[in-house]
């Protein structure tokens, strides 16, 4: 398949000049060639240089970056010494980019039709009166429903998945020969992501594209790429076919990266990859990965390993690539703490909880109008036992974060009750709650960049709960802060630092430390790992599990990632449009019988295994509000029975003790 390279990057080094005048490389001597029909996945942690490399293929460098040495060729054209005009003609023409956040890459004040017409005018040979037909053709190629109606819509009227499809359509307008994709599905729901992956896969095949796919998501890469290149600290550490790299990685870093991904079919926590990659400014003497590597010896620390070409077609930058099998034995995963006993007390009860964001106005109240939209969250009844971890999963808009915010008193309830420790009502907003209750419920947010005040030192951040709830000050405050920091595996020397001086994983540890400082009964975790790299995610999950075992804390763990929820939870509730579809022990929910929605979600998960194809049942349409009557999933359900689904609230069917499915389909058929 791979004859002559179409995109050919040779010995490319790219760097920036630091303030002291030193040249600091971010890409070091990278080689990459892509032939027509080839699809290469570029993998690595944030900061590994993968996006820089992908943009370099277009001859584009972010401000401040310059080429130190090497060359970039596109179909024989030297991209580094080409006139600006020619470059502009190539970009978006023969070479198209699909960026990460397509919502931002579409112009908000132009209709979809106009935007795609623009792309056609600039980069296609189509005569002007065929543009309309061309637009509709492109929109149907990316499998958007009702392409004619869509041309008149504005980007904000489309869902994230639809916007991404429009971005793909625009990229295809020029009939490109090569496609660069920079994390194109990050931030999209699982079902949407799976559909877009299938689309890209088919497009690449139909059009014989040369594709470069940058992602930290190995599941997505497994689906569309036939080759994978793993980058670490600006260097290539491993290349090979997707099967070779994902199933039997020959580099310790790739091995660690794969082990840190939570898998659907495993009941244990993923293996954390300790340490952090070197900063570009650090001088690396030996192997860049040596400090984090379990196989490293003296040679690794003193001399840089060469990129060895193996007979199998792989290329590995490691002295010990023949000893990788040892890692498998060393990394026997520790089983997670077992589910709590059922006879324990209830920590938190949600009784028929409902939340509505639309407050009925005075007029609507007076006339008792029937047009009030259905509640965002409704009929949530869950008892959470002490020490239990309850996972809440669902796509965006499923109401999972709203439920957390309601428990925390940041969003008012519409009806129903929240009861702490069986007796203490948490019905008021946070301002009116007694401080004894406040201490018992703590929340950890998704993005530590946003949840830690950038102007506070770690000491000041930890002091806030300690002073507020325990009135600590002076030496006891400092001692307690250090003790808590050590619990989250950070040392006393972190106290004086500011959040900006910490890595993403360290920041999230501080956020966790702040929550635990209150010594709470319940911790609400709102997508706490989704802003982190996979290797860091594994470490954070492990930390949360250890702390919970120590303190017997109860977690409510919200995530869109089904594998993460499976790894950490004892019980799982699957939510759709603010209603529970299925709830039960992890093992029961993740195996048949399924609610049709659970089935659709699980089927759409992309596993980092090229041999496993997703099962796409439900389509990826996005609904903005729940249906007024009947089952919340009625409009997308592939197994809809008929009008009963539209009129009646699904019956609760107890499949096994504690495992409940809300569905009209008879139990035997589920």
């Amino acid at each position, binding site marked *: 398949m791979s004859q002559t390279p179409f995109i050919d990057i040779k010995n490319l080094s790219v760097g920036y000049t630091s303030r002291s005048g030193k040249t600091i490389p971010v890409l070091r001597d990278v080689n990459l060639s892509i032939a027509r029909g080839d699809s290469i996945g570029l993998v690595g942690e944030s900061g590994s240089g993968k996006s820089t490399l992908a943009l370099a293929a277009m001859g584009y460098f972010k401000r401040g970056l310059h080429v130190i040495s090497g060359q970039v060729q596109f179909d024989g054209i030297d991209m580094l010494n080409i006139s600006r005009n020619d470059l502009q003609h190539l970009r978006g023409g023969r070479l198209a980019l699909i960026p990460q956040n397509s919502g931002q890459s579409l112009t908000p004040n132009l209709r979809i039709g106009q935007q795609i017409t623009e792309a056609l005018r600039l980069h296609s040979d189509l005569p002007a009166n065929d543009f309309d037909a061309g637009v509709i053709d492109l929109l149907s190629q990316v499998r958007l429903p009702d392409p004619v109606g869509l041309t008149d819509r504005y980007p904000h009227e489309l869902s994230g998945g639809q916007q991404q499809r429009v971005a793909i359509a625009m990229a295809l307008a020029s009939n490109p020969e090569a496609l660069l994709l920079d994390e194109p599905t990050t931030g999209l729901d699982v079902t949407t992501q799976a559909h877009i992956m299938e689309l890209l896969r088919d497009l690449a095949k139909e059009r014989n594209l040369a594709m470069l796919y940058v992602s930290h998501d190995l599941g997505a890469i497994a689906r569309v790429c036939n080759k994978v290149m793993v980058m670490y600290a600006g260097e290539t550490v491993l290349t090979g076919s997707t099967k070779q790299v994902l199933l039997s990685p020959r580099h310790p870093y790739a091995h660690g990266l794969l082990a840190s991904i939570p898998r659907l079919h495993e009941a244990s926590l993923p293996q954390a990859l300790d340490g952090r990659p070197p900063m570009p400014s650090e001088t690396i003497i030996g192997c860049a990965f040596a400090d984090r590597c379990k196989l490293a010896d003296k040679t690794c620390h003193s001399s840089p390993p060469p990129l060895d070409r193996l007979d199998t077609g792989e290329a590995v930058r490691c002295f010990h690539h023949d000893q990788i099998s040892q890692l498998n034995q060393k990394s026997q995963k520790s089983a997670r703490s077992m589910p709590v006993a059922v006879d324990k007390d209830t920590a938190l009860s949600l009784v028929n909880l409902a939340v509505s964001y639309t407050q009925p106005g005075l007029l609507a109240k007076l006339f008792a109008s029937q047009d009030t939209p259905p509640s965002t969250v409704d009929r949530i009844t869950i008892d959470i036992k002490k020490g239990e971890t309850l996972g809440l999963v669902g796509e965006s808009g499923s109401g999972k974060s709203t439920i957390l915010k309601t428990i925390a008193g940041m969003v008012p309830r519409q009806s129903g009750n929240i009861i702490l420790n069986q007796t203490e009502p948490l019905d008021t907003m946070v301002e009116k709650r007694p401080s004894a209750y406040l201490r018992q419920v703590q929340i950890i947010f998704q993005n530590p960049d946003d949840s830690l*005040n950038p102007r506070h*030192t770690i000491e000041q951040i930890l002091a*806030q709960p300690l002073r*507020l709830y325990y009135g600590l000050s002076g030496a006891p405050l400092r001692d307690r802060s250090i003790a808590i920091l050590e619990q989250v595996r950070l040392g006393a020397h972190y106290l004086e630092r500011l959040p900006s001086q910490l890595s993403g994983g360290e920041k999230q540890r501080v956020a966790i430390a702040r929550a635990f400082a209150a010594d709470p009964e319940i911790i609400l975790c709102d997508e706490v790992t989704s802003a982190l790299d996979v290797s860091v995610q594994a470490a954070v999950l492990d930390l949360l599990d250890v702390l919970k075992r120590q303190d017997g804390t109860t977690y409510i763990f919200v995530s869109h990632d089904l594998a993460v929820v499976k790894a950490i939870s004892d019980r799982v509730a699957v939510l759709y449009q603010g209603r529970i579809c299925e709830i039960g022990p992890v093992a029961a929910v993740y195996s048949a019988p399924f609610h049709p929605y659970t089935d659709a979600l699980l089927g759409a998960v992309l596993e980092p295994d090229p041999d496993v194809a997703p099962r796409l049942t439900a389509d990826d349409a996005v609904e903005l509000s729940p249906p007024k009557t009947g089952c919340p999933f009625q409009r997308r359900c592939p197994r809809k029975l008929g009008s009963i689904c539209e009129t009646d609230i699904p019956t609760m069917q107890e499949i096994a003790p504690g495992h409940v499915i809300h569905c009209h389909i008879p139990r035997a058929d589920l």
Partner: protein
Amino acid sequence: MTVSSNSHQQENGRFMTVMKDILARPSGRIGLTLVLFHILLALLSPSIAPYDFKLQNSSLMLSPPSGDHWLGADHLGRDILSRTLMGGREALLVTGIATPLAVMWGGFIGILFGLVGGRVDEVLMRIVDAFLSLPWILKMLVLIVTFGTGIGVLIPTLTFFYGIPVIRVARAATHDIIARDFVWAAKARGHSRISIIWRELLPNVLDTLMVEGAMRWSWMLLAFSSLSFLGFGVSPPTPDWGLMISDARGFMSFAPWGVIAPVIGLSSLIIGINLSADALAKALGIDRAQKAPM
């Protein structure tokens, strides 16, 4: 006590790093040097000025620069060097008091509007917009004509009008910060509103206000000089750059030195302030001027 002294040290440490960052930039070095030079000059000029600024010598009227009078003399035969050296004193005094006052009241009201939010904020901001839509010179002249000139009127007038744009900036910064998760986190923990404003909000808004203050200072200097130019600022014979430019502009074609000297004085101070403000914004990391990716 240890904690408060600690946080004090932290603030000190931050001041030093910001200072270092400013001085590491050419704009910061040049800007701060110019500003410091002018402040020193304002303090010392009475003792270093070679002649009495109001001494008139009819034999020297409009005489060009010479060995005795380095920058020549004006239409009343007064030494231009002495008058230029002292010409910034009044301006620096008035704006030096009015700027911090303007930032303080504008910042306070802006943060308040930002916190109150909703419809009240909407309505009040439209009033602010209405004020901003009037030409500044017009509103100022109305007050000055009504209450008369002199420092006692100029400082409150400048403070009032230059605080209004600060409201906008402080309100926008407040809106940015209160939507962030760390404010939510403090709220969920149960901190009081005062504590949230004081600890979470203010430290983050102050950076923006500092840069805004530096920018406002240079605008205010320009406004003060313009008022003097029009005859509504300082009263003669007090030396002032704006007034000097106004006096000398009639003779510009044959005695340009009378205009050039105060122009250099005024513009070097304003450029100095602008460069410092620019470096400060970059050092604090709130510089929004980014090169377009084209």
